[in-house]
């Protein structure tokens, strides 16, 4: 069975492109439309990687990352921020909170794939 990826983003059009991409890469793809949905999925699943947007309604990306960091069952789960926030201070903050990678929107699909693969190898 392939690797598991959780895509957390509130923009359906963006999610659609990522879902298509990672399914083609033989990932098992979970989708959450905001942080609270992500937390529900993470309650029972431990994906290898979470692709996480930051600016979302209800529970945002930072809170979701915090949750992952605290949960024992998720200690092997890598977290990659994928967000439009591209200021240096934002990137620094994201990495400091414990994200493994910080990728910015708009993105190149190929770049995302190679970054994720590199992270998981």
């Amino acid at each position, binding site marked *: 069975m392939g690797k598991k990826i959780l895509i957390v983003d509130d923009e359906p059009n963006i999610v*659609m492109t990522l879902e298509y991409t990672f399914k083609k890469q033989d990932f098992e793809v979970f989708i959450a439309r905001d942080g609270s949905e992500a937390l529900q999925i993470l309650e029972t699943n431990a994906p290898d990687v979470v692709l996480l947007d930051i600016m979302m309604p209800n529970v945002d990306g930072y809170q979701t990352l915090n949750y992952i960091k605290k949960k024992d069952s998720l200690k092997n789960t890598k977290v990659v921020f994928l967000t439009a926030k591209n200021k240096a201070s934002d990137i620094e903050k994201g990495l400091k909170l414990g994200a493994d990678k910080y990728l910015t929107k708009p993105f190149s699909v*190929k770049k995302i794939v190679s970054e994720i693969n590199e992270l998981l190898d």
Partner: protein
Amino acid sequence: MSNYSLIIIIILYLSVLFYIAYLAEKKAKSKWINNPYIYSLSLAVYCSAWTYYGSVGIAANSGISFLTIYLGPVIAVPLWIVVLRKIIRISKQHKISSIADFISLRYGNNRFLGALITIICAFGTVPYISLQLKAVSETFEIMTEKSNYVSTSILGDSTFYIALLLAIFATFFGTQTTDASEKHKGIVASVAFESILKLVFFLIIGVYVTYFLFDGTEDIYNKISQTENFENLIKLNGLEEGFNWFFMIMLSFMAIFLLPRQFQVSVLENNREKHLKKAIWLFPLYLLLFNLFVIFIGWAGKLSFSREVNGEYFALLLPLQNNNIFLALLVFLGGFSAVISMVVVSTLALSTMVSNNLIIPYGFLDKFVKNHPEKNAFYIKSIRRISIFSIIVLAYGFYYNFSIELPLISIGLISFVIISQLAPSFFIGLFWNRGSSKGAIIGIIIGFLITSYTLILPFSIEAFTGSNSFTQNGLFGITSLKPYALFGIDFLNPHSHAFLWSLTSNTLCYLIFSLTSKGDYRERNYAEMFVDSSNYSSLQDSALVWKGEAYVADIKNVLNKFLGEKHTQRALNIFFTKYKLPQDTQMADARLINFSEKLLTGSIGSASAKILIASVIKEEEISLIEVLKILEESKETNARNKLLREKSKQLISLTNQLKQANEDLRTKDKQKDEFLDTVAHELKTPITGIRAATELLIDENGEMPNEIKEQFLKNMLQDSDRLSRLINDILDFEKLSTGRQTLNLELNSIKKTIKHAINSVQHIASNKEITIINDNLVDFQFHYDEDRILQVLTNLLSNSIKFTEPKKGKIIVEYKMINNFIEIYVIDNGKVIPEEDFDYIFDKFYQSMNQNTIKPEGSGLGLAISKQIIEQHSGKIWAKRGNKSGATFVFKLPFN
């Protein structure tokens, strides 16, 4: 009563007075001497023999008009708290020793003015003293029953010896120190004692006459009312008499301030300012008591004696007629007390003026400079002693030669009119800093000349020649120059008439010459200090103008001559300590010169002090312009300091404002950053979608299933629409918020506009099966920008559709007119707006957490833009709070 026993009683009485004065001098610090009662009683020196005998005479002959002389002071007394306090303060600060000193200092130590005032005071006082001597002499005669007796030789006249005794008394207690500004506690204490005696004795005789000789006041009134001419005694005779009253009251009003003896007791002998507070009710009370029985004694005398008897001595004659020698003796002693206090205080005051303002500055200064201090002190005292004797002898001479024929009241009033000539320079000078010495001198001279012509001259001519042709025909027979009726004013009595003319011309001269001539710098300095006496000390230090070169050693030399080395050194030490100067200061400044002048003023008068000090310093001429500049500068400095303080206050508040503005700017800047961030985020989102989908479509062209390809293309279209909508909204918002968007106000129908808006969203609503209703029947037509209002309505309707559940949804649009505003409601039955959102929903990019989890279509600017549009229409938009279900948005637009 025999001649000799009366003389023995007089000598005994004088000894008692000597003893009291001696005790008071010895225990000068005792509270028996330094209290407001002594002060108030000493003021009663005002009540002289004139009051004691003269008033009764007037009451008998012309009724109640004697009261005017006491009404003036009673009116003046309340003013003391302000005016007299100011005078006392200035006098103490400058060691003033007489009214001549006071006035001449106000006009810059003017030597001539001081001398002039001294002469005026001498003219006013000497006849007045002679009047007192006349009273003594005449009452002495009455007591010893030698009626109409006048000794042919002076040496045989007992009055002469009494006068000499008084001179000795005044000399002994009046010249204890060389410094005339020192208090004379012995004299004041004896005056207070005499004031008690004269009042008590007068009340006793009043009670005796009214209740023992007659059956009380009513009895006297009933009897006198049956005599002829009674009406004239108790009422004013028309307007003309009213004028006389008015002028007499004014005259005595001035006299209470200006008479040298009053100035002496009320100002110079004042120990504490607070004594004034008691005096302002005690003194009027004293006057009231004194006048209580005057009218009844007068009427009783009139009823008891024939017309030929002099009414002035009724108080003495009534007990004598009834063989009550003891009571007569009391009256005599009371009158004698009034005489002694008046003569002693007047002589003292006048002698100080004569020595300090006339003799020393005009003749003895050169001598003083060369002498030793002890010798100087001896000279100064001698000059004063000789002055006292001369004045009393002069007064006796006047009495002996002139006043035997004249009634007391005439001489008294002439004195008042003469003294009143000081009024303009005294009163106006206190409150008007433009008053100049030239004005004062010319005013006093003119006033005195007119008094001489209208009062003194005709009086003297009549007294000497017994002819009244001068008063009847006027000078050279010119009617308008009649001395008692100048220019046809013939309805006043001679004193009021003289007072009116002399004082009017005096005042006019004073004002005119003060306005047309400016005094020199010295004068202006003192004028400023007198007028603004509350600021005195600061003025003295800062505004005292002096330029030149002076050595402390030279000044010390002069001071030594008068004060002695010990006293001088002590005074200088105090001065240096006060102004924080080193004890070995070499060069004298303006303050030291001023201080030294003050030190000398008490001994030799202000004019002499100025001359003496000026002789050892090299003063440079200062032009008036320079003085004005210096004075103005000190004023300006004050003004500038005030301005500076205000400016610094303003600066502080400005700084605070700046801080606030800076804070606001920073907040705005932060908001701007946040706005840009949000805009960037919102723009990036659709671009990201388009970017990713495009990449996939290109790379996976072959492998991608068709339906996915189609979905991606649809998404790209949607994102592109979203992007362009967003850009339009951002530009819109920007235009509205910077005010670059102007409204296109036209007359529109609100019903039509709403219909239009509903139509534009109808298809989205239909898709969700939501109904939108407007069933207003009335239409309102008013001015608004239809496109913009349409935009607002569309936005509100879209929101409602967005937050309303499909199929069940219902949206109502309605409007009504309230208070000249059209209120438009958009009501739906969708989600309730959460309480925490109300404050923010109209903010840009605020998107409720409450909306569907699927990303809403909006740019996040809809309500923010709507708010801008409505506010630009001078309207208001808000969401209704407290809805149980659904949301209600309201906006209102002005109807006209």
